[in-house]
């Protein structure tokens, strides 16, 4: 299972936050479709952790969110 490709870049500036959120959504969709794929789960957890903690600060939010999303 591979997350759907993001839309083609239009050459404009990249919004890191928006891109990260979009990536998290694609990974969530992919993870839901293939919950046994540990690589996907790891990528999702790391992406959520990045979203939640900025520069890597992680007070367990990613783990909490994974419990919430099942």
């Amino acid at each position, binding site marked *: 299972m591979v997350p759907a490709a993001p839309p083609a870049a239009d050459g404009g500036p990249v919004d890191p936050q928006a891109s990260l959120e979009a990536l*998290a959504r694609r990974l969530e969709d992919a993870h839901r479709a293939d919950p046994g794929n540990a690589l996907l789960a790891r990528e999702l957890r790391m992406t959520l952790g990045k979203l939640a903690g900025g520069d890597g600060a992680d007070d367990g939010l990613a783990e909490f969110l994974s419990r919430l*999303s099942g």
Partner: protein
Amino acid sequence: MTGSLNFSAGCPARWATPLTGRPSLLERVEVAAAELRIDLMGHQRQIAATATELDGSGNLVYQQVTVTIPRQQGKSTLMLCVMVALAWRRPRTQIIYAAQTRLDARRTMFDEWWPMIAASRLGRVCKPRRAAGGEALLFANGSRIGLVWVEEGRPRSHGRYRGHRRMLGPAG
């Protein structure tokens, strides 16, 4: 979660739809509640367990749930926990909270719910949108909790609601 749950620690409802043994979102509601520092009472857990039962496809069994309990018995705090669980369960979930008036709806969202969210780790993946008419709590996964209220005496020049004193006001 199954129908073997024990709610006797609280005050179980005298009349209630019985649990069927289907899985439910109770565990996730409890995770959300714990994060929000809400200690769910027995009747709240009973409501959450019943109302969020899932079918074999993972969809909610009940399209409509009616809960009748006295005021100040934890309805809106339970709603917050359920809505957070639903919002984070699936990306881009659209949730609407309805109240009597716009002021009531805003008070619940921004004076009651948002401070609890902001004080928790959820505050890092959720942000409020306070713009009039577009009030909402926006989650990083694209889900949203919006508001709807009932206004009195709002003018409306056409349509089937003409002449009615009350109508629904959308938000967000």
